């Protein structure tokens, strides 16, 4: 029995024993009062014993905790010496800039050499103007300023602005993302690069080549993104399966350019669905495959199809629906999963674009309106090999297929080009750290048709590029 309980029992016993000593001449009333007093005493002590038992239980609980922290206390004491030597207090978890968001700045620039005018567009495809090739000679690229951090226990925020060398700031991404939904669900909202395909969400500074693939450039406007909301779900599987859906305003008509007039339907102008599946094969290999689909409405106001403008010098408008369907595959290898000395990466993506709607030819002049259908596709395949620390080399092939374009009545006014653009790219880059990269690239560009001969206009392009990242450590995206 614990000592406190023993003492309490002794007190009760003493009280009971001492009572008869005082009751020397007991009367009936006295006896009754003694009984009552005894009863009271008994009750008092019982409650006190109960209270003591409760305290005892609490003390036992505390001692159990003490037992657990004993090991901790012991080692802590042993470590006092080390801790003392360490002048700074221990920061709790990694948080750059204390409570400020993590800030990073990307600097990049290019020296370009072209055989032909770099501003002319890929023949037969309505190019975006989102990513144009760097100008001839030395030029500053877009500087990127990014900030990100946790808002609170429930949300994360991220902001990325692009500062154009000629002035002006554009918001590339600015979104929130949920942290606390759980069960594999995440919601992202605001402006963000779409999760469709593989390369689309990769920012230019993290590209493996100085320029985007042709298919990404002409169908997705380099990095397709919208203002809207994204839902992602990861089912509880032993392999990676990501399912995603996006709904947006339809800020840009992918691959064509900005939609200046809002489409109808209160701005639900675009939908994206994507699924990615990925895993490791042993320690050295990993892969990811994906399928994506984008659907967009131009609204009845229509959008200019730039390429046809280039050909005719008149203003044309397309209104209708665009479907972009894509398949992507990525494979990576590093000996025993350690990419430091050698590693290899292969990526390929195929996209098909279908346009279905109405086409108005020469809106300011004859304004001939009739149906319009187009089905075009393109793909690239690229391989990048790091053959020694810091040094990588890469090869890429790009191909676009003019496909079929049905102009109906407007066929009398316009002949769509039947030209399949292609391009070969070779690059070598040197990255003495994760934060810097210098790259030399050669493109054999056959993306434009020589209008006179109908053959490809071969352009030998050379780029020398630098990319520097300052500030917060970037993410090692797969």
């Amino acid at each position, binding site marked *: 029995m614990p000592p406190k309980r023993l003492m309490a029992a002794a007190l009760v016993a003493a009280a009971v024993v001492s009572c008869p000593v005082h009751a020397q001449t007991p009367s009936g009333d006295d006896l009754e009062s003694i009984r009552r007093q005894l009863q009271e005493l008994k009750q008092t002590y019982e409650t006190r014993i109960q209270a003591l038992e409760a305290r005892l239980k609490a003390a036992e609980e505390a001692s159990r905790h003490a037992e657990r922290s004993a*090991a901790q206390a012991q080692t802590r004491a042993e470590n006092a010496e*080390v801790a003392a030597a360490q002048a700074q207090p221990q920061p709790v978890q990694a948080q750059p800039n204390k409570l400020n968001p993590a800030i990073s700045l990307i600097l990049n620039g290019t020296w370009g050499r072209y055989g032909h005018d770099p501003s002319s567009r890929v023949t037969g495809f309505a190019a975006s103007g989102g990513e144009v090739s760097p100008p001839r000679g030395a030029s500053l690229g877009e500087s990127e300023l990014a900030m990100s951090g946790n808002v609170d*226990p429930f949300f994360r925020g991220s902001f990325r602005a692009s500062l154009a060398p000629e002035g002006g700031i554009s918001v590339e991404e600015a979104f929130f993302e949920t942290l606390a939904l759980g069960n594999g669900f995440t919601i992202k909202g605001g402006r963000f690069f779409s999760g469709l395909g593989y390369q689309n969400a990769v920012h230019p500074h993290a590209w493996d080549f100085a320029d985007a693939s042709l298919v990404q450039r002409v169908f997705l406007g380099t990095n397709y993104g919208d203002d809207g909301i994204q839902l992602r779900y990861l*089912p509880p599987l032993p392999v990676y399966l990501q399912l995603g859906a996006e709904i947006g305003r339809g800020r840009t008509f992918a691959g064509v350019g900005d939609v200046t007039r809002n489409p109808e339907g209160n701005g639900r102008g675009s939908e994206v669905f994507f699924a990615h599946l990925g895993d*490791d094969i042993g320690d050295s290999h*990993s892969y990811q495959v994906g399928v994506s689909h984008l659907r967009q409405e131009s609204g009845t106001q229509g959008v200019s199809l730039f390429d046809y403008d280039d050909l005719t010098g008149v203003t044309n408008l397309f209104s209708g629906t665009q479907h972009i369907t894509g398949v992507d595959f990525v494979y990576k290898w590093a000996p025993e999963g350690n990419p430091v000395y050698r590693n290899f990466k292969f990526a390929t993506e195929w996209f098909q674009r279908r346009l279905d709607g109405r086409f108005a030819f020469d809106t300011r002049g004859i304004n001939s309106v009739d149906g319009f259908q187009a089905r075009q596709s393109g793909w690239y395949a690229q391989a990048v090999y790091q053959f020694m620390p810091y040094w990588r080399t890469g090869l890429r092939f790009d191909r676009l297929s003019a496909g079929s374009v049905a102009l109906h009545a407007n066929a009398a006014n316009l002949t769509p080009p039947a030209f399949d653009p292609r391009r070969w790219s070779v690059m070598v880059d040197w990255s003495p750290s994760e934060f810097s990269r210098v790259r030399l690239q050669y493109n054999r560009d056959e993306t434009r048709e020589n209008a006179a001969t109908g053959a490809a206009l071969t352009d030998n392009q050379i780029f020398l590029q630098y990319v520097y990242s300052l500030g917060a450590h970037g993410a090692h995206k*797969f």
Partner: protein
Amino acid sequence: MKKMPKLFLVALLALWGPLAHATVRVFACEPEWGALVKEIAGDRATVYVATTAMQDVHRIQARPSLIARARSADLVVCTGAELEIGWIPMVRSQSGNERIQLGKPGYLEVASFVPRIEVPTVVDRALGDMHPQGNPHIQFGPRQMQLAAVEVEKRLAQVDPAGEQDYRTRLADFTRRWKDATARWATLGAPLKGVGVIQYHKNFSYLFDFLGMRETGTLEPKPGVEPTSSHLNELITQQKTDPARMVIRSSYHAEGPAQWLASRIGVPSIMLPATVGGTPGAKDLFGLYDDSIRRMLDALKQGG
């Protein structure tokens, strides 16, 4: 598209049964934390280890497999001190798992709970791959490992209160064995006291600190920067005034530069396990220390 949800439900139901768990699912960023969790949790936990002793943990990518494993984890145990800064934040934000977010009991950065050495006074990227919170390779500090065990037990009890008693008992047992082993290692490693060594990267600083060894230099001119010939030549010159008795590299480093330097300065070049699993002897945490100390003692004898 409309048939998808139904198909999914069926697939989910089929898979959910076998996946339904009775144990705590732990995602360990490095093998040492996997081994420590096994010590404290025994069969109560199923442990997935994200990296191996053959990989430079600084350079891992947020691979799909890692995101998939983090998605269902009850507890993520990482080193912290920015060792995994390139990939773990992305793995967490992509996982859709609220239990492993920053500030939750299910996310543990061990380095935040142990004293760290080599805390830089000046932090600048010009000095290489900096860890502002000090050397993150804490697995080689016996005291650090003991404190880590206490924190791991606490977190396990938080995410799995039913196992509290088990964890406490196992922690007490581990603490006793670890204390004995620590005393044994101090005796075993006594001949290494004061011995000068060159290491590839600061992987073993905590072990040198524990055994009273002296690091005379690193093969890397700056943390995370590969050895250069000019820097190796400096180390050769320095050997005359501040001699090293061996050149040590970890299981994930290239042998070439270490071998080259060792032959030039006439000392043995040895490989130590970067963590559990780095050598056949480093089967668990105890083996990691035993094997590492033995390898250094052998090199000392070999060097004469």
